[in-house]
């Protein structure tokens, strides 16, 4: 499973050259900064600094870019906890419990939890990558359009899990998101819902819509508060509390392990990645909670932060599987990395692993060290970023609003980004007012184009017949898992009811 000679060579390469260790801390800081600023994403950071990698050797360049990836993965948690604005789409589920913790004055602990979960999960993800890169590359090759469509559908079943209390409102929001996600040029080459505008060919700018839908309702409602943390005594920056959160995350090692596994596996599926991984891990943890604990999710349960952060951080390792093993970028970040491959005349794919095992192992080992470095750099960074709770909201909110709108412009390079963000912001606020979960719409938006493309390819692959889904074992297994996921809350409710009935009978 592991080539020991190549591993030894990787150690030699990594620890006899100083250049990676100059590039990696810089990459982590850049990633943290870009991840923290809503609207600016990790792929933007990687794209901005991509030309710089021309002056580095290939290994240093990839380690520099993965450092930005790792730093950004955690950086997105900072605004998610402090402002309910996911710095990246992968930090969406972090807002669910991180922000309520911050509102209760537990921001230091929440960020410590996020840091602990992120660093350990990054290391675990790369450990899995080290052990499984060869078998994983074979499995990923077996996933065809029907399987990928089923994975997308599985992501959509989260709607039911997340919109507890109003299944139909969740379903409607998800279906609307799915429809909006297909706006633009379809896989069949047809333009829909674009009003004839060329800017809309790629559809709705999803990051802008996501920030608008999720963050805006809170930002608008913050007009009623003076500070993020209302209680002045709780408005403190405490290294002890950060460390308490950090070690609190380590005490939930089982949760981190599960999140890391889910993140690595889902992260390896092209087009799905960390965005869905954090939601799956969060809902799974929430659904597994027993008794009254389930009700504490969404209200500041530390386990919610750990589950979300462990999955989104480890998904980086998963996405590296598809990049290294298949030469297929799983998302925008790995697409930029593929650009770095091309700049250094390196071609990813199954042959890359067999021909360059020492480079693959160097990248994996380098990322282990990165996760240790992230602990120290992250704690230093958090002490500065937490000062945000001391800022009056009358300065903070207008600045954040302007930054998100300008970030949306930077993302799209035209006015479509800001217009989408404002439209989504207002819609998100209204949806919240009437009890529609905006997150369901976001999931639909994220998966819409991918789901349609894979469904179309399945249809064509099956000779214009959709029974192909019942002919492939992996697709059928995924379908069974999906139905079980949908039925599980109902089964649990029935079991709980029968337990109560039995208790009543016995008394």
């Amino acid at each position, binding site marked *: 499973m592991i080539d020991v000679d190549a591993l030894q060579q990787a150690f030699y390469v990594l620890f006899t050259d100083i250049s990676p260790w100059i590039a990696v801390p810089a990459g982590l800081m850049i990633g943290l900064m870009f991840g923290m600023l809503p609207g600016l994403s990790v792929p*933007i950071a990687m794209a*901005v600094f991509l030309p710089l990698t021309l002056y580095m050797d290939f290994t240093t360049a990839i380690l520099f870019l993965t450092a930005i990836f790792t730093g950004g993965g955690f950086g997105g948690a900072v605004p998610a906890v402090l402002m309910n604005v996911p710095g990246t789409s992968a930090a969406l589920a972090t807002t*669910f419990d991180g922000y309520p913790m911050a509102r209760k004055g537990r921001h230091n602990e929440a960020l410590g939890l996020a840091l602990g979960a992120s660093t350990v999960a990054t290391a675990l993800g790369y450990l899995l990558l080290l052990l499984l890169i060869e078998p994983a590359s074979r499995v990923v090759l077996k996933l065809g359009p029907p399987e990928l469509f089923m994975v997308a559908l599985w992501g959509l079943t989260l709607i039911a899990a997340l*919109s*507890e*209390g*109003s299944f*139909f*409102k969740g*379903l*409607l929001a998800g279906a*609307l998101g*799915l*429809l909006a996600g*297909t706006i633009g040029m*379809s896989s*069949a080459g*047809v*333009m*829909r*819902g674009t009003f004839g505008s060329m800017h809309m060919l790629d559809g709705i700018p999803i990051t802008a819509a996501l920030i608008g839908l999720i963050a805006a309702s809170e930002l*608008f409602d*913050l*007009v*009623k508060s*003076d500070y993020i943390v209302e209680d002045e005594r709780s408005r403190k920056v405490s290294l002890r509390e950060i460390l308490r959160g950090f070690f609190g995350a380590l005490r939930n090692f089982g949760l981190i392990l599960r999140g890391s596994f889910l993140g690595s596996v889902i992260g390896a599926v092209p087009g799905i990645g960390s965005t869905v991984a954090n939601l799956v891990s969060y809902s799974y943890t929430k659904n597994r909670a027993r008794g009254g604990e389930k009700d504490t*999710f*969404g209200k500041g349960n530390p386990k919610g932060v750990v589950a979300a952060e462990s999955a989104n951080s480890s998904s980086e390792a998963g996405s590296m599987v598809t990049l290294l093993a298949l030469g297929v970028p799983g998302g925008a970040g790995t697409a930029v990395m593929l650009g770095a491959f091309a700049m250094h005349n390196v071609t990813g794919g199954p042959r890359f692993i067999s021909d360059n095992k020492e480079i693959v192992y160097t990248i994996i080992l380098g990322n282990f060290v990165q996760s240790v470095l992230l602990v120290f750099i992250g704690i230093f960074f958090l002490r500065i970023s937490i000062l945000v709770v001391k800022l009056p909201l*009358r*300065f903070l*909110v*207008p*600045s954040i*609003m*302007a*930054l998100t*709108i*300008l970030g949306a*412009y930077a993302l799209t390079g035209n*006015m479509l980004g*800001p217009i989408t*963000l*404002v439209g989504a*912001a*207002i819609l998100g*606020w*209204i*949806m919240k*007012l*009437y*009890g*529609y*979960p905006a*997150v369901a719409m976001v999931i639909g938006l994220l998966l819409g184009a991918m*789901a*349609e493309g894979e*469904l*179309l390819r399945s*249809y064509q692959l099956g000779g*214009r017949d959709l029974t192909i889904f019942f002919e492939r074992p992996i697709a059928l297994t995924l379908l069974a898992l999906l139905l079980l996921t949908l039925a599980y809350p109902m089964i649990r409710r029935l079991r709980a009811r029968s337990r109560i009935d039995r208790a009543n009978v016995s008394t």
Partner: protein
Amino acid sequence: MIVKNVPGRATWGHIALLAGFAAFIVWYVADSFLASSQITNLLLIVPVGGLALFIAAMLLVQTGMALRSNARGRPGAPEAPAEQAPWRHRYGPMASMISMVIYVVGLPWAGFDLATACFVAANMWIYGERNLVLIAGYACAFGAAVAAAMRYLLFVPIPTLLPL
């Protein structure tokens, strides 16, 4: 993520929202159909659109019935006393949304620096700051700084009022 019950007095707004959702679904499915009526184009859109329209109609009926029963159940009910909440609590979110729309419309015309400064200043006032010197100073510095950062750090070409 627990969905709250819709307050009875707000159901007209809810009906308007559902009508908006339904209008979007109908328009989008029709637009897709007009673009191409081939099954490859409508494979996902028609079933999802049909499902969404069905749920929207169901919720519309449910909300309409709730509205009717509210009206029947409280004949001649006394008007709720006017809320005593401060101005920014009652109208702040709405004012902030309007300022955001004006900001986005004004960005290409006024320049990113001036529009950002005006937007930040307006929202500082909406969010409760009353020191005009502080508002002007902070908003101008912020507007100039972010416009310069976009142009020189992110290399995004943007129109500005100042020759940055």
